[in-house]
């Protein structure tokens, strides 16, 4: 099974962190805050849909609020498969990092 892409990974982590608040806008915001890169709405929708299709996330409609023009929010939640997948990714990463020598934070001025 191929690993999640980095964006997918970040989104799933965001979903986990946001809990009851995990819908498109806060997720996008969290990504922007953490990475410092601009994320458009569209760039969140696509991976979200993909993850739902893969079965790592599922979604439900929540209450409508006035600032949404009376429309529902779609709240995302990790599925069991999603939780397991995140674990696998974490393990793979930790394994990879743990056998990697320190990568200098600064460019090596002299060798």
């Amino acid at each position, binding site marked *: 099974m191929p690993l999640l892409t980095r964006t997918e990974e970040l989104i799933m982590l965001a979903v986990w962190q946001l809990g009851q608040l995990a819908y498109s*806008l806060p997720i996008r915001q969290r990504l922007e805050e953490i990475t410092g890169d601009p994320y458009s709405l569209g760039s969140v929708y696509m991976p979200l849909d993909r993850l739902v299709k893969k079965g790592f996330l599922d979604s439900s409609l929540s209450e409508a609020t006035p600032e949404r023009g009376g429309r529902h929010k779609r709240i995302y939640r990790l599925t069991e498969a999603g939780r397991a997948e995140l674990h696998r990714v974490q393990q793979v990463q930790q394994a990879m990092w743990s056998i990697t020598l320190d990568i200098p934070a600064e460019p090596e001025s002299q060798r």
Partner: protein
Amino acid sequence: MNRNTPPRPPQFAQWLLRRILTDKKWDTPLGDFEEYYGELARTKGPSAATRWYWKQVLGLIPRRVLNSTYWSAMMLTNYLKTAWRNLWRYRIYSLINILGLAVGMACFILIMIWIQEEISYDRYHPRPDSLYRVCSVYHTPSGDSRVSAPQPAPLAGLLKTEFPEVVRSTLYFTPVLSLVSADKRFSERFAMVDPDFLEMFTLPGFRGDPDTALDDPNSVIIPQRIAERFFGEENPLGRLLFLEGRAMVTVTGVFRDLPANTHHRFTCLCPIQMLAKFGRDLNNWRDVSFKVYVELAESTSATELEEKLKPLIAKIAPGQPITAQLQPVPDIHLRDLNGGGLIVYIYIFLAMGLFTLIIAWINYINLATARASRRFREISMRRILGAGRRQLIRQFMGESLLMACLAMVVALLLVKLALPFFSLLAGKTLAPDVSPLFFLMIGGVTYLTGVITGLYPAFILSSSKPVRTLKGDIAQPGGYRNLRRALVVFQFSLSIILIIGSIVIYRQLSFMRSRNLGYNPDSVFSVQMNRELYKNYSAIRTALLRNPAVLNVTLTNTSLDQLESSVSGNQVHWEGKTSDDQLPTLALMGVGPEFLETFRASMREGRFFDPKRPGDARTAAILNEAAGRAIGWDQPVGRQIEVAGNPLSVIGVIRDFNFRSLHHDVEPMIILLNWGIDVIDVRIRPENKPQTLAAIQQTIRSIIPGYTLDYEFLEDQLDELYGAEQRMAHFSQIMTLLAVFISCLGLLGLAAFTVEVRIKEIGIRRVLGSSTAGVVFLLGRDFSGWIIAANLVAWPAAYLLLSRWLEGFAYRVHLDIWTFALSGLLAFLLAMATVGYQTIKAARTNPVETLRYE
């Protein structure tokens, strides 16, 4: 900005977005958009947010538009391709379908064109809906009523002065008068009217002053055509002519000929005052010979005025059971005063047109459902590839709309081709009034055809189960077959009703033609009297009778078909008449002593007028049988009767002869000798009429130099009277033929299909020893059953419809069972002939051919 009311995206952009993203699934993202807009507005300012929002919306549009048009274009080409393939693969069916629909539509359109023409009569006047003709209704003691148009002359003026509701009024009297210049003379039908006439009725292309043109009694208004004959290219206005060689008149107006769509039949006009100059008393309440037209004020109801006229009638005709009726002028062409008239035919033909259209629709529905199984595979394929039911329905509705459009194109071509012939049949030039309404009708018929013929097949086709059909099980549920049967039965019922109808119409009309009128109208012509003729009458008569081709010559007050002179019942008295004895208006006729021989009428008892007894002219009267019955005399001869103040003795009773349409009973009539003579009637030998007429003109010229014979044959006039109905009969026959043709076309398609479906069954039966006849019987049984059922439906319906139609005739044929049986048999034979070829062909096919591939 108030925190409680979050900023909203621009209204228009929102609306646009909602139009683009209609699906429910876009709801949540739309909410996201709106919330994000609010967030942007807070962090970067409302204008930036608005900019962002608009960018999103506009970015969506091209994709959306492209997407939808791309896919609908794809589907459309696919639909068209499929439709075309199906049309082409089943060429015969398609031809049957389109031809049937086209013929049905063409019939309907032709009928609508005709109806459009007929109901346009007298609608071109300034205020057509306020124009009325005043009629009187006589109520008989038995509860019947009889309406008649002639009125006394003073009524017109009185109505206008006494009733504020009557804005304008005119007398209307239409004699034939001769118009003479120094070197030319023409006899023309005149309308003698009051000056108001010109404001009430439109004369097309009128030149002259309409306010004053009829004010001077010595004025005349003539049509352009006659003006040219008198004066050539010169201006006719102000020129002088002579009327009847008696009065000098000035041309005060010229107009183009009257249009065809008016009930008026005059060519020239002159003031009614001229009639007074000719010696007629226009203040005489007893002279009931005029028509009266009135124009009512805005917002006046005719019924209310009829009510208000009651006291007036009581004054004019005390104690008479008469009421007034105001007949709308546009109705005059459509409705006869005593019921019936053209309107009946309009309804008949409207029904015929609808029947034909429905028959054509049923064809289409039947063939489409029958052939549905051929398309189940295509449909299943579509469904499996994701077509929804609605899409399929749209597809098939589209197909039938396409067929309807094709059929309409063909139909319009047919109409164009048939119109000259149809005009001939209708006896008038018909052209579609190419108005928006006409196009609306064309479009409406096309659309309705498409929808009605498409609806049912579309639902059947779209409801098939893909899995079953793809497995090869293409049998249709039985319900559809039952519906098809019902439709065929219904269709053939309509056809049989039409056949019965046209047979009965034909029989009734030829019955009317052949019925004994009570006199013989053949080879009798009438000549309008003028002063010279009157002066020289006896010389002319003697000279004419020397010609062996001239059988007899006599006089009457009008030509027989136009008899309108009458005397109202309260002017007729006899000994012992009580106030309970009410008489309807009696026809009054003046004749010469040779009337009986000339017209070949006959006496029932007593004697006819005798030229050797000059006293007859003042003292004798002859009644017809109807008059004797109306008065209640068993033995009228020898009795005394007073007519309009003149004491007369009844010397004989003439057998009833029919001087009006055979729609009505013979009216009571009093005949007087040499009363109001205005017409010479001549009976000639039926052979060599033109030669005889030329000789007659020569003879009269030897007495009156330069005389031009202006004659009208009575038989032609009667033909005209019944001609309209004759034409209707022809027309209904043609419509019936077409309707039956369309039905048979449908049956042909259905038979072909049935045979096709059962071809293997037939093959097996043949192999197992069935005879050709047996197979034909097997296949024919179904169809003949349907036709018999159709007969059972059609007969009672036809009986009801036709007996209602026949009620409009005083003399009518009986509806006998043979007409019905014959029509049923005819339909049966036609259907069998249609089906027969297919079944025999199928029965004779070598089973090897059909079963080879099993």
